[in-house]
């Protein structure tokens, strides 16, 4: 039987037994959404171990992929089996995408890891559900940790960053990146900063600037309990990558000790349920309003009130 002929249960079983093709197929089904995605979501929800989910974000050219590649290389030495979800934007005009991140991760995705490239496909909302779904699938299939890599310049990335337990923001020496990061709202979501290409001039100035920004945000009430550390790396030759991992582990401990991990996961759970509800409801709304017009003489206010009652009525169609 070919992979495409298997159903979700069979695929799941195969994936848990190490069949990478099956896992690849399941990831596709999650991205597609619909009943297959929901079935996978159920299965993986019950099988998840709660492995660390790490978000790596930052401006283009900061060296995120190279950094991730280094992690993929070193984590197996610690007995871990990492999975990477590399998110890149789709063309708003054509819907297509060129996904080139995995190249920099240097072909290490053999037995030790798994790399999946994901395009935004034009709807940020969809990504906010499919990426956590993929992360949970990797978790249930035995991968640890799950790394989500995004280009940190917009709301999409901030949303996706919400799927991570630890968010790493990567900048390079020079004022530009740090300002960009701040503007994109990444300063608030950052649990950890990396100054990559730290062999360049200006690395220490950038560190100082970041510390200053953190001082200010501390004053305004953020980062009260945990001040994001700043790690210097040179990803191309691996310098500092071990410190980065130590900092990630340390953050994880903090999350567990302080109860923050539970709080974040609850918040994400709520967000996921809310997103799904919103999606369901908005397609219901689309369906219902598809054929209405103003010829009935009813005002929008009264017409919508009536439609809402019909949706909420006890004998309205079930969601599933």
């Amino acid at each position, binding site marked *: 039987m*070919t*992979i495409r002929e298997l159903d979700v249960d069979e695929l799941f079983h195969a994936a848990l037994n190490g069949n*990478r*093709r099956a*896992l*690849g*197929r399941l*990831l*596709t089904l999650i*991205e*597609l*959404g*619909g*009943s297959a*995605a929901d079935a996978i979501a159920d299965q993986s929800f019950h099988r998840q171990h709660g492995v660390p989910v790490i978000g790596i974000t930052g401006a283009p050219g900061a060296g995120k992929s190279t950094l991730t590649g280094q992690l993929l290389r070193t984590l197996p030495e610690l007995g871990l089996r990492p999975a990477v979800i590399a998110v890149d934007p*789709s*063309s708003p005009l*054509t*819907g*297509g*995408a*060129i*996904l*080139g991140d*995995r*190249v920099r991760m240097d*072909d290490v*995705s*053999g037995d030790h890891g*798994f*790399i*999946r*490239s994901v*395009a935004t*496909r034009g*709807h940020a909302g*969809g990504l906010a*559900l*499919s990426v956590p779904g993929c992360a949970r699938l990797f978790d249930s299939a035995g991968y640890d940790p799950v790394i989500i890599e995004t280009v940190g310049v917009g709301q999409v990335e901030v949303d996706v960053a919400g799927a991570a337990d630890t968010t790493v923001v990567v900048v390079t020496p020079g004022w530009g990146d740090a300002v960009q990061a701040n503007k994109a709202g990444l300063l608030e979501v950052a649990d950890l900063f990396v100054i990559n290409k730290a062999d360049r001039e200006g690395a220490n100035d950038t560190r100082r600037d970041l510390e200053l920004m953190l001082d200010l945000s501390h004053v305004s009430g953020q980062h009260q309990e945990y001040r994001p550390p700043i790690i210097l790396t040179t990803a191309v030759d691996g310098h500092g990558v071990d410190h980065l991992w130590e900092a990630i582990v340390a953050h994880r401990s903090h999350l567990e000790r302080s109860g923050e991990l539970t709080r974040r996961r609850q918040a994400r759970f709520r967000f996921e349920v809310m997103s*799904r509800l919103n*999606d*369901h409801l908005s*397609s*219901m709304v689309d*369906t219902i309003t598809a054929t209405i017009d103003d010829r009935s003489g009813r005002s929008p206010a009264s017409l919508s009130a009536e439609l809402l009652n019909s949706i909420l009525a006890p004998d309205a169609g079930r*969601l*599933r």
Partner: protein
Amino acid sequence: MADTFNETRPIRVVLAKLGLDGHDRGIKIVARILRDAGMEVIYLGLRQTTASIVAAAEEEDADAVGLSMHNAGHLALAPKMLAALRDADLDVPLIIGGIIPDVDIPVLTDAGVAAILGPGAPAEQVVATVRNAVAR
């Protein structure tokens, strides 16, 4: 219940060059052509091995693999790639683009290559070839 996301996903194509051949002008143009046609291109680029291409095709659930060849190695390399895909149980079409003399086309096709694109093939032809290969 209405599905929450797109019902059909874009075609996903792995593009790569095997071995040492460094001529990537054509493969980059093909990548853009396919993206402009709404496809998702997993661009591996240069210096790939059959192992790295198979890993990508598996992990990315690719619909097709496209290899670009300019160094007259196609008669040795195409069968190697086909064998690697077969060994991994990957039933995805292999499309070869680049400098392939006409006389070699039947040889490659008999070996299992799904389609062959010549240098400078127009965009419409490239897109149609990929779509047809995936549909089969």
